[in-house]
């Protein structure tokens, strides 16, 4: 295995949460013990970041992502365990790299440069490049306390990447700044990757994690939940966030379920093309809904229907029942109904599924699970990029001359001729 750029060995880190912080003598003397609680932000993290990899750290708020990054940056010292770092490092935490508010942009560039281990001459040689990347040339002689958040972040990012560290730690920088600056960030980070440097970034933007990172680490309440290929980790993270644990379904809550109850859908699971239970699917790949029913009495003429909504409930994307596809059920006892979409046309996003059992002219509802099953669709790298909500197979053609000559076009494709 290649050398690790960063190796965390059983790292534990706690904060003391003081109920009333006391820093003065009076309080120290009067209340000899400060009342505080120990909060464990990191609980025994073992982690290796391979040289040249781009690793994303994901997790809910308060899961320890920023503490992890600060510990890697050696800003925080762990209570137990240790972090090994091989290579020069620059960190960009909470958008800053330690600018002094009273100094100008120019002065801060040189100060930060030396904080990141560069000589004055090095920084001077890169100065123009830094200003160019930051794109705030007219403001370089203004004290940074007068900068806007965006300008501040631009300059900080420009300095951090321009000192060319072997390891770059970035915390949420990609979420600020305008489109133009974000593009520059992406470009620069891509260059960084191409140069074989190591990047660790924390982000809540799963799209950036997926497009920039090759590895991802999922932290949950200070512990490592999952680490591995970025796509997989993000998928299981999103699966859980949007759909609860992707295991056997627990069924809908009471307020999402109604019906007379002569027949019940006792179990509903979402499966992918390999028959694995999941809540994350890819565009163009199969989605299978397998429902188990139990009928208290024999019921003829029953239909099963399924609807898909966008997670915010504002768009009804799909709705059909089994009869329209040639299936009318006669239920008695227990059995299984399966609804298969062989090529899921939905694009990336969060969705929710309703299923129901009812009689033929929908006069009687036996069991209705209203928007009870959340699932998430992620991009399929095999398909061309596309915006919107649905994937549509399509063709594009062009010719010159008579617009109505489409009957005999000099089209390269002959598929329409049949």
């Amino acid at each position: 295995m290649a050398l690790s750029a960063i190796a965390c060995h059983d790292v534990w880190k706690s904060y003391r949460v003081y109920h009333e912080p006391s820093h003065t003598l009076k309080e120290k003397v009067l209340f000899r013990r400060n009342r505080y609680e120990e909060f464990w932000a990191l609980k025994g993290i073992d982690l290796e970041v391979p040289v040249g990899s781009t690793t994303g750290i994901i997790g809910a708020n308060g899961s320890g992502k920023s503490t992890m990054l600060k510990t890697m940056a050696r800003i925080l010292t762990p209570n137990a365990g240790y972090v090994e770092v091989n290579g020069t490092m620059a960190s960009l935490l909470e958008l800053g790299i330690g600018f002094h508010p009273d100094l100008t942009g120019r002065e801060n560039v040189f100060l930060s440069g030396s904080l990141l281990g560069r000589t004055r001459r090095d920084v001077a040689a890169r100065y123009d490049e830094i200003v160019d990347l930051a794109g705030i040339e007219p403001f370089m002689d203004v004290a940074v306390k007068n900068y806007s958040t965006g300008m501040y972040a631009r300059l900080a990012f420009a300095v951090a990447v321009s000192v060319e560290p072997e390891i770059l730690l970035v915390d949420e920088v990609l979420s600020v700044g305008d489109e133009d600056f974000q593009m520059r960030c992406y470009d620069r980070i891509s260059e960084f990757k191409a140069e074989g440097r190591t990047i660790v970034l924390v982000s809540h933007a799963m799209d950036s994690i997926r497009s920039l990172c090759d590895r991802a680490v999922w932290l949950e309440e200070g512990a490592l939940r999952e680490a591995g290929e970025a796509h997989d980790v993000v998928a299981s993270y999103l699966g859980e966030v949007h759909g609860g644990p992707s295991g056997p379904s627990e069924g809908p809550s009471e307020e999402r379920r109604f019906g007379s109850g002569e027949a019940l859908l006792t179990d509903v699971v979402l499966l992918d093309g390999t028959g694995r239970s999941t809540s994350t699917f890819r565009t163009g790949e199969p989605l299978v809904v397998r429902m188990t029913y139990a009928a208290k009495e024999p019921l003829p003429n029953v239909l099963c229907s399924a609807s898909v909504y966008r997670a915010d409930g504002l768009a009804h994307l799909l709705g059909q029942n089994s009869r329209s596809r040639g299936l009318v059920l006669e239920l008695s006892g227990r059995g299984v109904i399966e609804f298969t979409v062989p090529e899921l046309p939905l694009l990336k996003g969060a969705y929710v599924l309703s299923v129901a059992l009812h009689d033929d002219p929908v006069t009687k509802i036996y069991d209705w699970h209203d928007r009870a099953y959340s699932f998430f669709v992620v991009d399929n790298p095999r398909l061309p990029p596309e915006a919107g909500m649905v994937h549509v197979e399509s063709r594009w053609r062009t010719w010159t001359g008579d617009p109505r000559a489409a009957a005999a076009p000099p089209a390269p494709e002959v598929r329409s001729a049949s």
Partner: protein
Amino acid sequence: MGSQSLTAPPPALPPRATRRRPVSIRGSLRELVQARELTVNLVRRDLKVEHRGTFLGMLWSLATPLLLVALYYVVFKFIIGAHPAVDKPRPDGNDVPFALYFFAGLTVWNLFSNSLSRSTTSVTSSGYLLRKVYLPKAILPLASVLSSLVTFAFEFVVLMVAVLLVVGPPSAQLLWAPAIVAVALVMAYGLALLLSAVNVFLRDTAHFIGILLQLWFWATPVIYSLQFVAKNPGVATLLKLNPMTGVVVSLRNVTLLDRGPELGLLAGDLGFALIALAVGAVVFNRSQRLFAELV
């Protein structure tokens, strides 16, 4: 390559045995040496921030001592009119104005006192750095001491020019000056390490040090001479226990009075300085891991 789960769910209890790699003092020292350029930049930052927005800028460092000397001269010559306690004449018998006598001791006292007052808050006021980047933290008090050294250099130049013009050319005794200043610097840095670390946990330190420096000033023969209190042996002994006494008296001797340093006192001061440095280094080193969280 599929995803792999690397750890089990977190254990419920924090670890009892802590495995930590301690920061060795030697390692810290190496970092300090490696961060030379950063130190210089931090000193530059201190001075820039101090003079930010002023018309004269760095010239203030020169103007302040010049104005002070002029002021003392006027006050002691025309207002107080006394010629107090310069009871150790120069070997050549040249007259020494009291203003210069006072100023000579004041330069090195200011070096010490500025170092302490600046450095006490050097860590707590650098939160913007400590929370963002890794840096060898001991350079923060060091930068404060060194910026005070820059201020001292200006004052010292003014002093020597005034001595040259008013009293006469200095002798070879002046060669002792760097050694005397070095003792003051070691002492200042040792105490700076201690105070800057303590101030993180107990913010009263910054207030306390202001009062302490006032007391300490009057307990040091800056505005009076050792001979002035010689009649009272108790006070004289007490003064000799003050680790700044040897430094102030010696620097005045070699710059102004054309005499050698008080080697006995100076040796004692050096001893104190080294103890202060050792204690300061240990306290600072042991507490620095908490700085980023508490500032």
